[in-house]
């Protein structure tokens, strides 16, 4: 089996646009009639639901933000009465008040279908054991992949997260075929497998579906090596559905968005104008296939680019790249948009540790960027000449790949302050 819903996943653009148009018109009416905030927003700009004739009119619609969800906490944006809800999930609330999302029975079916498409996309079949090590609970990770596996007719193993020794035992004894968890947990499971002296080739495991946190290509290669599997990236957010909004296929070249349910746009985060394929901007989704929480033009704050070219796997659905960072992290230095993650990948490409800090300042009305990099023994040398060459190498790599001029400062190891294991990456001294 190559595709779960080939009639959608390999449909021509015309067919997809027709489905998207019909569904958009429907949810715009539903939102206007059932969600007071949307009625207010439409009325404010003099927009009537009848003004939306198809997907090409989407840019006429106002955006929805995370703040809107928080301001209407917990259920203010729901478009169905609470008796229609089949399930509730919530975000962790680490960046503020938690956001609550709801699903009707039909919404759960849509989400499970998307997760099933994802599993099939990475080569899964109904005969596979899908080992789910995402946390189960209000977090969407665990139940999302779980119901995707069941929808497909595969076998779900609801291990949930934690107890790594038992995870490894189950991989060995049950013969899990596909592992689903966060990439950092996959690394940890992989290291545990190796520490126990288990040859990963002796495991049945052949693929992993990892998401819910940012990870790099280097991490992918390391997980693939540790567990001797293929590692695939999955994307989702609870506001839109959960894991399965998009997922990589076996080509590992962008995540196919289930655009018959979640219509994507990439916009300039400052002006709100739509951007063409290949240009990086903020990813925006409209939940055209959902009943309980049909968010319109929801700003994800993820920075991403889209690609509408047909994929070598045969799918025609639009692909998104791995998010490059968050709009919250975006720095504008002398008019150039820079994300800390881009600087991180430059350092990684040079074979350096990603221990860095960015100091942004303004001198004589000009923005300045200092990239501080922690020294390690492989970069170190007893001669000034070689250390100056390291600085120059970093500066010219930043200039050629990101077009930014930065001063490089080498720091002693561990001198960048870490809090809860995470380093603070950006210090912006500009008083803008």
């Amino acid at each position, binding site marked *: 089996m190559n595709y779960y819903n080939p009639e959608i996943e390999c449909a021509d653009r015309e067919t997809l646009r027709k489905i998207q148009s019909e569904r958009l018109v429907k949810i715009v009416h539903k939102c206007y009639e059932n969600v007071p905030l949307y009625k207010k927003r439409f009325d404010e700009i003099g927009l009537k639901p009848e003004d939306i004739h198809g997907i090409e009119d989407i840019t006429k619609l106002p955006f929805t933000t995370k703040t809107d969800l928080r301001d209407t906490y917990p259920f203010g944006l729901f478009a169905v009465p609470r008796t229609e809800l089949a399930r509730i999930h919530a975000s962790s609330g680490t960046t503020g008040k938690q956001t609550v999302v709801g699903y009707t029975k039909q919404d759960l079916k849509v989400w499970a279908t998307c997760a099933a498409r994802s599993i099939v996309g990475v080569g899964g079949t109904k005969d596979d054991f899908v080992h789910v090590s995402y946390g189960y609970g209000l977090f969407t990770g665990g139940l999302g992949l779980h119901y995707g596996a069941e929808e497909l007719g595969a076998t779900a193993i609801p291990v949930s997260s934690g107890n790594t020794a038992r995870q490894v035992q189950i991989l060995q004894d049950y013969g899990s075929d596909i592992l689903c968890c966060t990439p950092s947990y996959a690394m940890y499971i992989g290291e545990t497998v190796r520490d126990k002296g288990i040859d990963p080739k002796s495991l049945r495991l052949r693929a992993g579906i990892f998401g819910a946190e940012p990870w790099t290509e280097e991490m992918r290669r390391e997980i693939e090596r540790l567990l001797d599997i293929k590692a695939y990236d999955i994307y989702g957010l609870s506001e839109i559905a959960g894991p399965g909004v998009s997922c990589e296929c076996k080509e590992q070249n962008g995540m196919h968005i289930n655009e018959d349910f979640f219509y994507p746009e990439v916009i300039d985060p400052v002006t709100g104008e739509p951007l063409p394929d290949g240009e990086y901007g903020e990813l925006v989704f409209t939940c055209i296939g959902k009943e309980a929480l049909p968010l319109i033009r929801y700003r994800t704050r993820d920075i991403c680019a889209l690609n509408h070219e047909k994929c070598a796997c045969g799918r025609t659905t639009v692909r998104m790249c791995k998010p490059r960072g968050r709009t919250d992290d975006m720095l504008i230095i002398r008019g150039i948009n820079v994300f800390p993650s881009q600087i991180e990948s430059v350092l990684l490409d040079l074979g350096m540790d990603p221990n860095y800090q960015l100091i942004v300042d303004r001198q004589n009305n000009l923005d300045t960027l200092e990239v501080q990099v922690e*020294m390690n023994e492989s970069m170190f040398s*007893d*001669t*000034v*000449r070689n250390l100056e060459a390291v600085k120059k190498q970093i500066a010219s790599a930043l200039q050629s790949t990101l077009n930014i001029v930065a001063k490089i*400062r080498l720091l*002693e*190891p561990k001198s960048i302050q870490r809090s809860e294991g995470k380093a603070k990456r950006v210090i912006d001294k500009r008083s803008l």
Partner: protein
Amino acid sequence: MQIQQLSVFIENKPGRLAEITEVLAEAGVDIRAISVADTSDFGILRVIVDRPKEAVLALREHGMTVSLTNVLAVGIPDDKGAFAKVIRILANAGIDVEYVYAFVSRDKGKAYVIIRTDKSARAAEVLTEKGIELLTGEALYNM
């Protein structure tokens, strides 16, 4: 003939040099020769000690970036032109000198110079051929 020199990365911050040398003192390591190369934002401390291995361990334990480099310790008689003669031998052999620093010993009439070249083994050969005195590690560490 090769001497092991420790190089330590230091940020230009007040008190940093004191902290590093205190680590060596606590580890009971004796410094034989010392030099600091400095730039606007970092420095490289170069030291010759009596027990290089212990010194490296102690510094690493304190989270410092350390490397070991082969250098030569050349005995220079107290005559005019003696140092120039040594450097000329290296130049004629096509060996680049990266840096040099001197230290004194209790022996009267003799100074010692630490020389870091791009080809340390070859440098030791040509200098020995020309009758220049090179200190062995052992002799230097026990000085």
